[in-house]
């Protein structure tokens, strides 16, 4: 480990301000620089570490950019078929009720091909946690239109901008599933500023804590950028996200303790 | 001994349950049995039929096109299965709802007016057991004590109080059956 650092002599306890959790695998992330996935991975694994549940946590990664999340999250993992993560999680949580189970899904996975699995798992009131990364685009396959792509937003399959008359409207699936009696905690967060990151970590903790109550799904949407797919620099992407994504996908809690708050 | 039987009528006449009780009775006396229903939408108020085989040997095909006995409870079934009785075989029908009499001369034909009798006695629910009683008088392939055991096995426990009524119907059926054409 030590030889990776230019100045090992500086690595002393009194100088230590941050230590990466052991629940992240020690390898470079495959995500683009500036992408939000890495931060969410870290927050999620910090929650697992803080809660002391690493040995009884089972995660499910999707198809999409985070298909390889299992290479970075140092807990037992399964890779689901596209959109099916909530079906896997349903079975695992019911077969292992004393395990903490989470799915980690993108917008295409959760809100397009996996809509049925998402809605029905939420409606059954399954007791696992869903982490939903919404960047309004299909990142891994090269920047195609997602169910959450904003009106007028350009992607490789709507190169002249999303025309809602032809392509339909952006799907606010988080608001949709909040209506279901089987969801207990539903929130929308972001990871573009240190303050937002701290809030997201709290939200993740609360969503995982839902599993102790057995009252239904804990659901955390994280509005994130895709600077590669959006064809912007990371800084531009975060600015664009604040200006365009947040008005459509406003941050904050939507359902708390089983009650709608927005 | 192998007895190959088709029981056919309307859905709701107890065709399938009559077959099931017969099959279970066979099991109770250590015979091989199979019970092969017609299934699907036609069951709901339409025609229903079931092939029951009771045998001392391992049963090969549960699906047959020739039968030792046909028990017929409506006209459609008579039209469909009269010619499926093996020469020298047995056809039993309930004349209620039958508009055309069976015509075969190479088989034994009996009638049993069970529907009328059951209605008269307020025993419509066990009408099918009257018919079964008639059949067993002619072909006692299962013993009465095993029918009772078969009833116990095939009826849910909450319906066991109906067993005496079922047994009464079996006895009535034995008296009710009449020859029409006997070889």
């Amino acid at each position, binding site marked *: 480990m030590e030889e990776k650092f230019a100045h090992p002599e500086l690595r002393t306890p009194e100088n230590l301000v941050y230590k990466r959790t052991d629940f992240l695998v020690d390898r470079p992330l495959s995500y683009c620089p500036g992408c939000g996935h890495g931060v969410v991975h870290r927050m999620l694994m910090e929650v697992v570490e803080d809660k002391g549940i690493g040995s009884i946590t089972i995660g499910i990664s999707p198809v999409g950019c985070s298909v390889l999340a*299992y290479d970075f999250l*140092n807990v037992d993992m399964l890779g689901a*078929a596209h959109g099916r993560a909530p079906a896997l999680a349903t*079975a695992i949580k019911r077969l292992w009720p004393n395990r903490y189970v989470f799915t980690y899904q993108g917008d295409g996975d959760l809100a397009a091909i996996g809509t049925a699995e998402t809605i029905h798992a939420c409606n059954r009131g399954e007791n696992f946690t869903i982490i939903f990364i919404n960047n309004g685009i299909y990142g891994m396959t090269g920047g195609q239109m997602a169910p959450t792509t904003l009106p007028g937003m350009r992607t490789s399959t709507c190169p002249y901008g999303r025309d809602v008359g032809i392509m339909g409207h952006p799907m606010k699936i988080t608001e949709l599933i909040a209506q279901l009696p089987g969801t207990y905690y539903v929130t929308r967060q972001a990871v573009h500023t240190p303050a937002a990151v701290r809030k997201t970590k709290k939200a993740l903790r609360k969503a995982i804590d839902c599993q102790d109550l057995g009252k239904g799904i804990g659901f955390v949407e994280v509005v994130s950028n895709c600077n590669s797919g959006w064809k912007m620099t990371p800084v531009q992407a975060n600015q664009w996200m604040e200006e365009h994504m947040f008005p459509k996908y406003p941050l904050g809690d939507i359902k708390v303790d089983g009650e709608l708050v927005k | 001994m192998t007895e190959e039987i088709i029981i056919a009528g309307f859905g709701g006449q107890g065709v399938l349950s009559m077959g099931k009780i017969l099959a279970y009775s066979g099991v109770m006396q250590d015979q091989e049995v199979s019970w092969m229903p017609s299934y699907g939408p036609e069951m709901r108020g339409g025609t229903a039929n079931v092939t029951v085989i009771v045998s001392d040997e391992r049963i090969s*095909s*549960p699906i047959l096109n020739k039968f030792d006995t046909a028990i017929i409870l409506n006209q459609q079934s008579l039209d469909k299965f009269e010619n499926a009785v093996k020469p020298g075989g047995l056809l039993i029908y309930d004349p209620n709802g039958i508009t055309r009499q069976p015509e075969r001369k190479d088989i034994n034909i009996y009638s049993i007016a069970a529907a009328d009798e059951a209605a008269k006695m307020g025993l419509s629910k066990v009408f099918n057991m009257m018919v079964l009683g008639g059949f067993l008088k002619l072909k006692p392939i299962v013993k009465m004590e095993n029918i009772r055991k078969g009833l116990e096995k095939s009826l849910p426990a909450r319906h066991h109080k109906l067993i005496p009524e079922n047994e009464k119907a079996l006895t009535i059926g034995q008296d009710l059956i009449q020859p029409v054409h006997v070889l």
Partner: protein
Amino acid sequence: MGELRLMKGNEAIAEAAIRVGCDGYFGYPITPQSEVMEYLMAEKPYETTGMVVLQAESEVAAINMLYGGAGTGKMVMTSSSSPGISLMQEGISYLAGTQLPALIVNIVRGGPGLGTIQPSQADYFQAVKGGGHGDYYTIVYAPASVQEMADFVKLGFDAAFHYRTPVLILSDGAIGQMMEKVYLPDPIPRRTEEEVISQCPWASTGKPPTREHHIMTSLDLDPAGQERLNLLLQEKYRVIEEKEVLYEKIDCDDAEYVFVAFGLSARICQKAVHLAREQGIKVGLFRPITLFPFPKKPLQELGKKVKGMLVVEMNAGQMIEDVILSVGFQIPIKHYGRFGGIIPTPDEVFRMLKEKIIGG
């Protein structure tokens, strides 16, 4: 021998599942197999053995629930009928690629499309030649009686876990719906969590600090790695072909002609064998019990002794391809099939044997 009951094939599968210690059933209603889940829901094994029974929102969800359960080492199963099994092919391919054990029951109905709810054997190719995408096979058992419906649940789970592969029971609507005597297996307790973890050391059950984390996936973006996985799968299938072949021969010793048939068709042909022998014609029946692995060698041997074979299937001629691949072209091998839910009668197949093989 266990407890004796008169049961439908579908019910026998459900009861056997409870008794062999199945951990979870996930399904979606479809005729003619809905009795499997109905029976389980009525029996409430979740209150007795702790077996989970869940009605999923679709066959797609159901098979992916299996994938989740299987990835954690649990003994999981589903049942469906042809159109539903088509929907499940995605998940079956993933189970094969990830090398996960699971039991899938197909109570086949006539197709293509929505088809009919009546029995058929038209899903032979789908079951035996892979079914979903990629180079894989599932072990396929073809029961011909209600007793085998019950017995093959244990057999299927054992093979699934031994080889870490999805296993199919390929039956049909008639065997699912008919009642016969069945001796049920003696109940085996479900495995404890500790037993699951020790018996499935590969599974994602929660990572203790003492080992690396487990990843259940079929994805390997490195071509060399993906080829290694494929070679491993092919080696597994070779071992299965060597060790797991099951078949039954009836009256074949002195037979001059044989029927080759599986499942319900084999029962019908068995009656036709009787009819033929009553007329002094020496006819036998060869019944493959495993359709993959196909009993190539015993059939090849039989092909050297008889004058001809009639392959009887409730389809347009699917298994006949495997029969010809096994036996070759030295003797006449013909096919007789009915479709769309029509079941051939014993008279009919005997007549066809005379017309197509003996007379020809």
